[in-house]
């Protein structure tokens, strides 16, 4: 177990393309950090730099108190779970789990003990002598996690581990990963493009965009006070309504604002509300319904209880403190 520090970390590819720049993250011992962002935002590159699979062009990575910039992946005391699981197809599950320990000259009985432990935690005991090809997606996922936990490393690195699973299994495995991490208290760095996965798993999440950190915070912090228009649009489902400030000129305090944001659940229907919306479509989610509409050329979405009355045009109101203002030049939060 250890803390991980990314100090002004950057990656420039030969040829000058900058994938990541100036990333500072302090990960406390035992913390679960999720790196989230759209594809191409540099989140996987960042993870691979921590793993040692990608060279570091700027800054430092420290695991514990040790700078590991030049340390081989094997000697960084980390374990990684890959998107395609990367199980060795010619080895049985048992051999897959034991391989890392065998390479480290762990005594035989110790290997057996740890493999037994891991297979009990992950309930993969019955499959130990099968080859990965004979396992289902969820079982392979478990084996991949097993291979990480038998090593008892200082940190787990997850590279979109759930994206190859179907929706239902993904939700189940998400919870399992969360419980497992709480139980083992191993520092974890998890990469995903799925904001829901990020919100549910993270102690703190790091929102990345274009190789830069947009915001670091607990899921609720990020949700309640997004640091930029990008974070506001990326975190939360349905996404926050972002309206160009020029569309509502009469609003006080919006002189420098470029965009005004409001969460769909912060809008309510009142007969004398200041926003008149023409309803375009309604999506039923069961517990609630999403109503999509237009006001003054801007698209807007609200969430309503599933029994709320519907009409073709609605008047909406909001509490002033529910508004998020983003600067017109930087896109950063204004308060």
């Amino acid at each position, binding site marked *: 177990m250890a803390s991980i520090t990314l100090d002004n970390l950057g990656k420039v590819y030969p040829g000058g393309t900058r994938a990541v720049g100036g990333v500072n993250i302090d990960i406390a011992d035992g913390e679960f950090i999720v790196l989230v962002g759209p594809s191409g935002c540099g989140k996987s590159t960042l993870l691979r730099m921590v793993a040692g699979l990608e060279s570091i062009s700027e800054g430092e990575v420290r695991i514990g108190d040790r700078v590991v910039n030049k340390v081989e992946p*094997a000697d960084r005391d980390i374990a990684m779970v890959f998107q395609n699981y990367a199980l060795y197809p010619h080895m049985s599950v048992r051999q897959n789990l034991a391989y890392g320990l065998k390479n480290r000259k762990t005594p035989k009985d110790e290997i057996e003990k740890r493999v037994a432990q891991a297979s009990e935690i992950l309930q993969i005991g019955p499959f130990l002598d099968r080859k990965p090809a004979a396992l289902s997606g969820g079982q392979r996922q478990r084996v991949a996690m097993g291979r990480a936990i038998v090593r008892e490393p200082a940190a787990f690195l997850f590279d979109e581990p759930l994206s190859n699973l179907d929706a239902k299994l993904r939700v189940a495995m998400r919870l399992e990963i969360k419980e497992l991490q709480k139980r083992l208290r191993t520092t974890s760095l998890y990469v995903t493009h799925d904001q829901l996965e990020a919100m549910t798993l993270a102690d703190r999440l790091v929102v990345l965009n274009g190789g830069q950190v947009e915001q670091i915070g607990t899921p609720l912090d990020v949700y309640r006070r997004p640091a930029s228009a990008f974070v506001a649009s990326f975190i939360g489902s349905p996404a926050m309504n972002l309206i160009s400030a020029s569309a509502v000129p009469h609003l006080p305090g919006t002189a420098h604002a470029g965009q005004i944001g409001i969460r769909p659940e912060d809008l309510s229907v009142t007969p004398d509300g200041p926003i008149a919306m023409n309803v375009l479509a309604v999506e039923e989610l069961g517990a609630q319904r999403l109503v999509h509409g237009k006001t003054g050329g801007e698209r807007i979405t609200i969430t309503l209880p599933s029994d709320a009355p519907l009409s073709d045009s609605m008047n909406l109101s909001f509490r002033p403190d529910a508004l998020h203002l983003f600067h017109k030049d930087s896109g950063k939060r204004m308060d």
Partner: protein
Amino acid sequence: MKRTIFSNQLLPWLLLAPQLIITFVFFLWPAAQAVRQSFLREDAFGTRTSFVGLENFAYLLQSPEYFNSLKVTAIFAVSVTVLSMGMALLLAIAVDRMIRSTRVYTTLLVWPYAVAPAVAGILWWFIFNPTIGIMPYVLAQVGYDWNHISSKTDAMMLVVIASAWKQISYNFLFFLAGLQSIPGSLREAAAIDGAGPVRRFFDITFPLLSPTTFFLLVVNIVYAMFDTFGVIDATTEGGPAQATNIMVYKVYFDGFIGQNIGSSAAQSVVLMILVLILTVVQFRFVEKKVAY
């Protein structure tokens, strides 16, 4: 599988005809001739032909020259296979590690495959020519007196090098394709699991290449045994003192130079049986056993 129904009965046969005719004229008919002739013996002037049963085969199995040829073929086939596959694997690993210019090197490395066996033979015959070649000159500098005209070992080395050189291209392509189909994350996972580059190769890469390796093993043995006639004919002609007289060359030499048609045909039949066995091995094992 898509099934097409022809209303005209003649058309499918017409469409198949070119392939069928070629197979019949150049394969089935000569093969049948060889089998027939292996049971016959002609007299020295070609005037009388008599049926002798298995006598040609019995004579072969008592002939020390034939056993020499078997031994030479075995040494030759194993050497060519090991050398060409080994070199090809090394080159494929080197190219696989490259990020850029992979295509350029691949193209260049494939060229030798386009060279005809006889031309490859002559090329190496010149390079190793004891009077005018560059290699004997270089070898002389380090104290080795190269002469494949008088030395059996040198002659064998020459035909092995010339034959293997041509086949490296083919093996290289298959090895490279095999290597590139192994996901990079497997090697990364092994790296994190504490395996160094050598360990990674033997624990992960090589086992995953085994289907390719086994396929190439059979193909290379077949190549060395049957397709190297041109190389031998252009360089050593089986000599010196039968040292490079591999089975397929002996068939030609005994039949067309020695005019012993019966024995030559019997040798052809033995070769046919060998091909048959190798084909069975290929299908039985490549399809089923060598998988993970």
